[in-house]
């Protein structure tokens, strides 16, 4: 994937201001290189340890692809914000809150599902905006500000769901949404015909009832690709992308050269809120319910994916493609350990060790390649 991006500077190298660099060299110095290498390592690992367990059969693949896809959605937002020099710890709580913003109006107030979803997106963007404004105005670390949002949003999710619905799990959304285009947009399955064809051709397995083992690509995966692609293009091909790097690298210097740092940061907080809401909407539409405990700890998974993907915790460096591969690594490791049949009590130990290995490998490769000290 890095290939197609990097060929562009090489093509323009007739400009005397640009240093000539071999394609290989410029490929190696990209922030996502380590994550790609880590992903390959992880795949090799599971190809050996989880062989014959169904991990690489069609439904097994779709399982970890879905998990990785979900994570990609919030990791993209987290990566952009991190490159812009800030954190958002309220992503997980926002997932729970956005879910309730969709489910409660739909189930209890008879609001059409499309309007509920629109309401949830508006509400989330507003909260993201407030997060951003508070961080920018007070100059407090975003770590603290969004930690407060983490608690406030989680608390509001519980309190409001009890207040309006008298329960913390609101189900039955499907009764209102099944025929709606919103359901199709967030929980549909794409390329059904293609998968039926694959099953008929014997490429993937079939169920005893004749259906293909995988019925289609879940919408959440397509959203993941779309969001990562847009994020990548904005970051690397637009003025706003340059502003993100500048704001995260040195906010004062950026301000001095005329970058609207406050606006950039506030926008990025709104982007993470938007991503969290996409995640929540896909989940609510797929499962037909919202619960007050949805999304617990997902903020850390998003940040971890971004960091595995080569984003610096200090800001100013990183890539969306990297975060994409970071999410892939995390998703594959998370589900892959289950495929190996490792004892559950040790699950989190393995998860931690594998992530540490992937990150170490990643950073070692990157240092070797870029010649950093």
């Amino acid at each position: 994937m890095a290939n197609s991006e990097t060929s562009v500077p090489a093509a323009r190298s007739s400009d005397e201001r640009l240093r000539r660099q071999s394609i290989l060299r410029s490929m190696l110095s990209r922030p996502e290189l380590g994550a790609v290498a880590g992903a390959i390592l992880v795949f090799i690992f599971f190809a050996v340890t989880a062989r014959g367990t169904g991990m690489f059969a069609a439904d097994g693949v779709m399982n970890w692809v879905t998990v990785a896809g979900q994570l990609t959605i919030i990791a993209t937002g987290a990566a952009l914000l991190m490159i812009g020099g800030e954190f958002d710890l309220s992503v997980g709580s926002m997932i729970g809150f956005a879910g309730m913003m969709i489910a409660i109006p739909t189930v209890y107030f008879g609001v059409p599902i499309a309007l509920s979803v629109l309401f949830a997106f508006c509400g989330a963007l507003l909260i993201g905006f407030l997060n951003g404004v508070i961080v920018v105005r007070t100059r407090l670390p975003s770590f603290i500000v969004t930690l407060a949002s983490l608690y406030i949003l989680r608390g509001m999710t519980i309190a409001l769901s009890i207040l309006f619905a008298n329960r913390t799990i609101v189900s039955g959304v499907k009764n209102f949404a099944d025929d709606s285009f919103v359901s199709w947009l967030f929980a549909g399955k794409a390329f059904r015909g293609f998968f039926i064809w694959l099953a008929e051709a014997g490429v993937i397995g079939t169920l005893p009832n004749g259906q293909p083992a995988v019925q289609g690509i879940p919408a959440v995966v397509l959203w993941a690709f779309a969001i990562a692609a847009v994020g990548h293009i904005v970051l690397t091909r637009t003025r706003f992308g340059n502003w993100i790097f500048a704001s995260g690298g040195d906010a004062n210097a950026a301000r001095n050269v005329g970058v609207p740092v406050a606006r950039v940061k506030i926008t990025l907080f709104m982007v993470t809120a938007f991503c969290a809401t996409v995640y929540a909407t896909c989940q609510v539409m797929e499962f037909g319910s919202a619960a007050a405990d949805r999304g617990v700890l997902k903020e850390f998974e998003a940040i971890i994916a971004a960091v595995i993907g080569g984003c610096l915790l200090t800001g100013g460096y990183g890539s969306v493609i990297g975060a994409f591969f970071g999410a892939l690594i995390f998703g594959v490791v998370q589900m892959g350990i289950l495929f190996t049949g490792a004892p559950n009590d040790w699950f989190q130990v393995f998860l931690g060790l594998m992530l540490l290995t992937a990150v170490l490998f990643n950073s070692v490769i990157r240092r070797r390649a870029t010649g950093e000290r």
Partner: protein
Amino acid sequence: MASLVKKLLTAFAVAVPVMMSIAPAAHADGERFVFVSHAPDTDSWWNVIKNALKNAAKETGTTVEYRNPPTGDIADMARIIEQSAATNPDGIITTIADFDVLKASIEQAIAKGIPVMTVNSGTADQSKQLGALMHIGQPEYDAGKGAGARAKAAGVTNFVCVNHYITNAASVERCQGYADALGVPLGDHMIDSSQDPTQVYNKVKAYLTAHADTNGILTLGPNSAEPTIKLLRDTGETSKYNFITFDLSADISQGIKDGIVESAIDQQPYLQGYLPVVLLTQYKRYGVMPANNINTGPGFVTKDNIGLVEKLAGEYR
């Protein structure tokens, strides 16, 4: 760079067999089952079930993998069920923590031809609707009814049901079953005590003062039982009521020993782990399966067996 890659590869050459040696699942001779619970890592109640799974696996010569969403997120649990189905196990045992969320995943596993049993949470109806082989759990209404029958035998005519979780339909069913067994309409015999110990204490106190003819008490768990036990200790009316509670805790055990609490209803979680493994094994080997669902509760813990229960608490009880 080459030496580094070599070093890393060597490290993995060591790590991979280690990982595989503790992952016998894919290579075992016996059947392989996956048990998926909804409980977060921190929920100690499930330790009993984990021990039951270990025993059952040993005795049947099968392997059982216990899986749960680390944070208790049911949406994550759906992914774990999908993952389990992808490994083509000989059977899946799962709770129905949230019917709507898990429906598609469980149905997909069944469509794949994997035998599925449901345990613990969920109802027999939901289990049947999903197409599972059977449900093993404690039906709330019947458990309440069992308690009511016990109370009736002890001469209870007027009762109070202390409900600390009134928003949960299952807890109302417990009170209803108890009332039906006594043949008394539930009506205002059920009080919404809330979860706060002080409030429970005062609400029960007010009820018992206003209804002096009450002679039976049903509490639905430690949250409502413990303040009620304290109240009876404070007023000295330790033997005035036939007091039955759901579930066990240290305070409830002491209450049983002191004769304040007549019995505690135990849903016997051990059986919810042990039985599905044994039954699925026989189903796989000989195609036999009981035709009915299995109720693991209500089992009653009384003064007579509290010693054994306390000794095994947290491990097998």
